[in-house]
């Protein structure tokens, strides 16, 4: 096994940091460390994105927990001689927007921070199975294999883990359904087709800790009696795919995948399939169709995937984040997991903060964290000291809310109790400078572009919604436009074939509820041009 060093310098190497010179910085750093004969004490580790995106090339020094930002090759000499040799932090480069400063925030707000999903991301070399193992990696799999499959499912059920993709279906229940099906073949599928606008957490998990998914899927296979796992990763996630493939190869070489895992009779193999640019493939049946080399269109429910899924066989489909929760739950127990979160929603949620917010990035916070905490404590407030214009939570298939909702605790019940959706954990902040209607027109454009076209309400309805929003933006809406919009919302909810269409109203209905004046003003200011009045 690889030796663990006393000091680790973690450098995020992802598609974006490479462009800012991360690789040059890394090579120079390694060279300088060798020059000063520090190679036996200091290791340089490539990691996935740290969730800090606006500080150029970032270095993190552990265990000192110091972060440097906007590092250029000319800074390396100073970092090595000052920090590594003399133990003095290079203040000039140190950044305040580090994970450690967030921890400070949490202390002040009285929240206990426990990273469950992101326990390894940014701390280990995601390409090193040894480092994963050194942090209890694959211990949960070993533990599971010593249990009865039913016991594994019971732990999951007791933990109250719910699906993190947005729907919140109880994971233990889903696994139990698949386990009890009699079938010659069953499948474990990981939905890594992250496409909900504003969501980028799964990329971070896959790039930063791919083994956590490999391990969790093997556990799911053992618990349900499946021997084949498939990770469906969106096609743009080139680095996620590469790291996942390496993780699968390494795990196979270590006997943690393949035949007779850890000397037991259990066999499990993993494959990676890629998406091709279709949001609807995040819908579980559309995703399965895509794996089957079909157009990514949903199927009718019931039957559900646990009964008849991939190739007609019982199938577990879980989101990346859901799987990432599984090994810690098995290791620490269901009670431990339930100690985080709220009565309705156990554990943590990985939130993706984006838009006009100071600290854009990924944070993992307990279920029940309020919007205000996310925006101001974790997110550092609005850029330029501006006010909030509006927020969208949960993604494009989520609610548009105002400052009035800032104190709503976000969990699986917040949609029901407060009309604020959790969805995939998107917190998109728009400042007062962002006009609402063009934004909603973009949301409408998004659904129109991503509708698969199978069913009438979604195919034709998204086109009509887009037309109405565009007319409101250009102040050419006719007086009946909002009445039509409202009829359309009902038909999406009532008759859309799948979750995509059924979720279209969330943004528009909430925007109408929370910002009625914006629509009224646009309508009042509208003049229907003659040509289009005729066609209406």
């Amino acid at each position: 096994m690889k030796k663990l060093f006393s000091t680790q310098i973690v450098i995020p190497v992802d598609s974006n940091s490479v462009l800012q010179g991360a690789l040059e910085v890394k090579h120079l750093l390694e060279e300088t460390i060798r020059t000063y004969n520090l190679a036996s004490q200091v290791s340089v580790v490539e990691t996935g994105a740290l969730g800090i995106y606006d500080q150029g090339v970032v270095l993190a020094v552990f265990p000192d927990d110091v972060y440097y930002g906007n590092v250029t090759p000319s800074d390396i000499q100073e970092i090595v001689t000052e920090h590594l040799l003399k133990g003095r932090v290079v203040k000039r480069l140190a950044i305040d927007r580090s994970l450690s400063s967030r921890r400070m925030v949490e202390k002040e707000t009285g929240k206990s921070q426990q990273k469950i999903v992101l326990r390894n991301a940014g701390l280990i070399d995601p390409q090193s199975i040894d480092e994963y193992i050194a942090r209890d990696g694959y211990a949960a799999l070993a533990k599971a294999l010593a249990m009865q499959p039913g016991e594994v499912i019971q732990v999951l059920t007791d933990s109250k883990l719910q699906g993190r993709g947005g729907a919140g279906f109880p994971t233990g229940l889903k696994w139990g359904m698949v386990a009890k099906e009699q079938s010659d073949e069953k499948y474990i599928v990981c939905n890594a087709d992250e496409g909900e606008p504003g969501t980028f957490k799964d990329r971070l998990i896959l790039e930063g800790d791919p083994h956590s998914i490999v391990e969790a899927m093997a556990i799911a296979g053992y618990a349900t009696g499946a021997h084949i796992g498939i990770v469906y990763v969106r096609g743009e996630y080139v680095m996620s795919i590469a790291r996942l493939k390496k993780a699968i190869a390494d795990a196979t070489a270590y006997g943690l995948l393949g035949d007779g895992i850890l000397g037991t009779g259990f066999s499990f193999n993993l494959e990676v399939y890629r998406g091709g640019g279709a949001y609807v493939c995040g819908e579980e049946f559309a995703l399965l169709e895509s794996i089957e080399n079909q157009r990514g269109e949903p199927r009718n429910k019931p039957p559900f995937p646990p009964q008849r899924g991939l190739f007609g066989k019982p199938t577990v489909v879980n989101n990346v984040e859901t799987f990432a929760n599984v090994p810690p739950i098995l290791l620490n127990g269901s009670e431990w997991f339930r100690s985080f979160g709220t009565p309705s929603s156990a554990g943590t949620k990985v939130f993706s903060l984006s838009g006009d917010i100071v600290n854009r990035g990924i944070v993992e916070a307990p279920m029940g964290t309020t919007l205000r905490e996310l925006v101001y404590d974790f997110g550092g407030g609005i850029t330029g000291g501006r006010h909030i214009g509006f927020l969208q939570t949960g993604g494009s298939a989520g609610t548009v809310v105002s400052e009035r909702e800032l104190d709503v605790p976000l969990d699986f019940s917040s949609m029901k109790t407060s009309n604020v959706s959790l969805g995939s954990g998107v917190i998109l902040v728009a400042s007062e400078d962002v006009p609402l209607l063009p934004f909603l027109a973009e949301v409408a454009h998004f659904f129109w572009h991503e509708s698969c076209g199978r069913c009438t309400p979604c195919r034709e309805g998204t086109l009509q919604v887009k037309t109405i929003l565009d007319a409101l933006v250009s102040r050419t809406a006719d007086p009946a436009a909002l009445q039509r919009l409202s009829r359309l919302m009902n038909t999406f909810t009532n008759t859309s074939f799948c979750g995509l269409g059924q979720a279209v109203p969330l943004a528009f209905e909430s925007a109408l509820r929370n910002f009625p004046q914006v629509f009224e003003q646009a309508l009042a200011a509208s003049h229907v041009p003659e040509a289009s009045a005729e066609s209406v």
Partner: protein
Amino acid sequence: MEMRTLHVKINGRDYQVPDGSTILEAASAYANIEIPTLCYLEGISEEGACGVCVVDVKGTRNLPRACLTKVSEGMEIWTNTARVREARKINVELLLANHPTDCFTCERTENCDLRDLASELGVREVEFPRTRTEWLPIDNTSLSLVRDPNKCILCRRCVNVCAKVQSVYAIDIAGRGSNSTVSTFLNEGLGNVECVNCGQCLLVCPTGALTERSEIPDVWKVLGDPDKIVVVETAPAVRVAIGEEFGMPDGTQATGKMAAALRSLGFNKVFDTDFSADLTIMEEGFELIGRIKNGGTLPLITSCSPGWIKFAETFFPGVLDYVSSCKSPQQMFGTVTKTYWAEKMGFDPRKIVVVSVMPCTAKKFEKERPEMKTAFHYWQEKMSLKDEEAFNDVDFVLTTREAARMIREAGIDFANLPDEDFDKPLGESSGAGVIFGATGGVMEAALRTAYEVLTRKSLPRLDFEDVRGLEGMKSATIDIDGTPLRVAIANGLGNARILIEEVQKGESPYQFIEIMTCPGGCLGGGGQPLSNNPDIKKRRAEAIYREDAGKPIRKSHENPEIQEIYKDFLGEPNSEKAHHLLHTTYHDRSGE
């Protein structure tokens, strides 16, 4: 196995329905409620696309689709709530918003499912504006079918019929969302891809998006030309279906009225394709006998269905040697008319126009095949014709629907016409020629002749019940005086594919195979009247066998006009002259 019964409530009343029923089936069979559908086609197209059949089910947030949702114990279904009516209406409105409004002039003006549904649901206003800015180009590449994508409502019935029933897979949805269309590969058009022209897609299309390439204007034109001798031939399956177009009961034998109506339209001679069906039996029957006696390639596979021929040429070029070299009855008719009959009557073949009325859209393609100019070659030397004067054996093909439309245009009261006979000599036929119109008919007709020729005995019983019926695949062993003859019949190309794959592998146990492109054979052809009766093929088949039973002559070789044409013109069946005029060749299209 005993079927479990479930207790359900439909609109407040209690019913017991079998487990496994859909809400649609349960409502129809037990509550007498016909839930409207637009895209649904039982067992073939179950897409849940249109969103019209939605119902209220207690305890569900949305409105489930009745076509796909199975009933469950204790389910409470409401088919007529305000929410349901509004949802159905709005989905139809959404379809209409982007649908052309040329209903007056649309081919489907009288029988459009979309129009009917809008009327049924009381859609009196479309609140939504047209949101598409451009009309899509019409696919006008096929000799048989025309596709107007603007009228397509993306119900996918055509896609599913083409794939699941016919196993041709010439079309699929292309693109995504509101930009999606039903399309051929790279939108090359039906005429440029593996489409076999069967027209089954047209039969299931709920709107005017798929129509036949109409030849009505061409036919009116020649009918008005005093220099032309315009003769018409009618296929066997037409006479048992054309009455439907005039409100006559399904399964009416309208042979006499059809002959009268066509004569009223101005055709100079009203002949019968049944005559050339008898001729086909002579040629094909003797081909079978020859192959059996001389150890030729077996099984012999029939060749009268042009969709099947293109299918074989495209997907199974390796089996073309098994396929009978006989032309189809339509093409034999054209050739004989422009050679034998022209000679007999002393007519200039160039002045003869042959119009055929067919239950088939593929026949429009077949008549244009380059090898179907036999009469021209027959005359070329005799009359020193130049190459550019080449004419087709058959000039125009009308579907049953087109023929009916012309009769309507002419104001003829079809149902009340007195029955008339076909003209002689090419109007004389046997019952064997008639049953060509049903699946298994060619087989039975051939067996009647082959049996008697091979055994030199008279058949004790003419009806071969084993080869009748509408099942997609049938097989039988026929005892020919102690020698067993194993035969198989497939209708629908999906079924044909199964039999033909066996042949390709050299594993076919049969000596004679009949293939019909369309489910049910020609009576279910793509050129037939559109019908909502699920038993329509059965009704038409019954009429065909009644027609056969009522014929004084029921074996092709006993048709006196057939005997005469061999005596006076062709010589023997399969003679050199017969081969030259009545047989054809096929070519490998797999690389196209």
